[in-house]
């Protein structure tokens, strides 16, 4: 990242904004400073991608928003977070879910001792609109993920990695969210399914008006489906812009997208970027 652009100006609370994070800082265990002032905005009905290398702080950002960070002994020490125009930092995670903002955690986190179907039903915990609606939502999820329907009675702990990922996404869908924080949805999924999941994201977004903030390593596909992107590096936003603009950005191309098509470099011939340094010469 050679030319870090300045972060966007403090976002104005506007009716078309679903979520804003304003200059937030996160500290783990009262010692490790991980986010050093991150600001971002998700427009209502938008799909925003949060990109960045391993350890950049993507997951931390999402957890700071959903307030799951507390459970990791982390703390938002600075900045503010607004969801649908209201301050939500300091709210409990379940309050957020009730307001329509739900997170799909990285690493699946299915309830191992519950069956797939029970897992999905826990997603509807905050819903009060009756059995019928929940059953309908369940059918909808099964329609999206037929594989889950086959495995509905097996314990989630025994299902394959990809099945668990589907289960986690389906579970979030069950809560009828207005905004989903999606952490690495493509991880461990077969290419076809990845495509499917992003299609589902698009469908929920266009038909249901659900906003998405997705943290993704698969920059390629993320920028295809997102409208806007932020690139995070070591706890700071270093670049942001319209997805189409980012796709054309030279640095992004080199570091994140690679070149597709015929003149793509083979992984076999990947060059070394870093100088090797010997420990104890």
């Amino acid at each position, binding site marked *: 990242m050679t030319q870090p652009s300045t972060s966007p100006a403090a976002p104005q609370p506007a009716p078309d904004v679903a979520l804003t994070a304003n200059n937030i800082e996160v500290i783990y265990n009262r010692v490790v400073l991980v986010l050093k002032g991150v600001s971002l905005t998700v427009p209502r009905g938008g799909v925003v991608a949060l990109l960045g290398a391993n350890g950049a702080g993507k997951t931390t950002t999402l957890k700071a928003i*959903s307030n*799951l960070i*507390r*459970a*990791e002994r982390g703390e938002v020490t600075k900045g503010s977070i607004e969801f649908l125009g209201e301050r939500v930092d300091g709210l*409990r*995670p*379940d309050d*957020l*879910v*009730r307001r329509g903002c*739900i*997170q*799909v*955690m990285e690493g699946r*986190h*299915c*309830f*191992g*001792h*519950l069956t797939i179907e*029970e*897992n999905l*039903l*826990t*997603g509807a*915990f*905050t819903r009060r609109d009756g059995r019928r609606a929940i059953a309908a939502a369940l059918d909808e999820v099964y329609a999206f993920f037929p594989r889950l329907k086959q495995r509905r009675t097996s*314990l989630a*702990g*025994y299902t394959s990695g990809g099945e668990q990922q589907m289960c986690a996404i389906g*579970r*979030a869908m069950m*809560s009828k969210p207005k905004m989903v924080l999606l952490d690495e949805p493509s991880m461990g999924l077969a290419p076809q399914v990845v495509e499917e999941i992003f299609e589902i994201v698009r469908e929920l977004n266009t038909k249901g008006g659900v906003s998405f903030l997705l943290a993704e390593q698969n920059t390629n596909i993320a920028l295809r489906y997102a409208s806007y992107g932020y690139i995070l590096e070591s706890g700071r936003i270093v670049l942001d812009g319209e997805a189409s603009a980012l796709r054309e950005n030279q640095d992004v191309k080199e570091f994140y997208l690679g070149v597709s098509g015929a003149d793509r470099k083979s992984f076999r011939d990947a060059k070394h970027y870093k100088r090797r340094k010997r420990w104890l010469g």
Partner: protein
Amino acid sequence: MHILYLIFVDPFVQMAGAPDLLVQTLWEGLVGGVLYALIALGFVLIFKASGVFNFAQGIMMVFAALTLVGLYEKGVPAWLALILAIGIMYLLALAVERVVLRPLVNQPDIMLFMATFGLTYLLIGLGEFVFGGNPKEMPVAALGLPKGSLDFKILGGLVSLQKIDIAAAVIASAMVAGLALFFQHTRIGRALRAVADDHQAALSVGISLNQIWVIVWFTAGIVALATGIMWGARSDVSFALQVISLKALPVLILGGFTSVPGAIVGGLIIGIGEKLGEFYWGPLVGGGIESWLAYVLALAFLLFKPEGLFGEKIIERI
């Protein structure tokens, strides 16, 4: 040879010879088992809902019963004392959630276990401070519990069933049945199981841990109170009762940590097993084997079924 006879034949000869005693032994085992099951139930509830192994369950039982009796001795009518005791268990649940569990959410189980040990110390100190350390008598009659016994002249002898024991069995069965249904078939029940699996994921789908924990600890508090009343009626209410609560542990592993019906089945097996063991085989080694028989039974059993009778499968996947 003689020793083999004593171990494998003689006890059964005795059983056949005095069937009334056998029935009585079984009954005592049954009642003991039901009472163990009640303690175990308290453990199961909390374990299921938070993955916390609540070391303080035993002391909660004493504390609840002590509150009841303590208030009664201060002149509060029994029914009011009962209501107040329930109220105090509610306050306790609130306090535990607020002070202990909330700051420790998503921590390893063993840390939460440790925290409940701190709670045990606190409750012992507090309980003795407020109510004194001397044993107290359970006002069985004032609470409307039956006294006396039903005697049956059958099998060429006398079988005598204490009414209070019958009441205990009925109350325990009702509680167990109710809770088992609750866990399997309700929204909250499912949420409880989810919480036990993964605190953070439960939070992420909007399950309010705070609320859930208050509910569960309160329920466990009521179970503790019921247990305290029953045990208290059998001997008396004192801090020595806490020791008994350890007996719930083999019951737990036998039934499986997370199973409500397991608690009752485990309780019955342990209760009856140890009474039969002590009564028919104990004298061979000088008696007193009741102190370890339950654990050894449970251990032997675990070797064949490492997750207990109804416990959740131990998931081993990579």
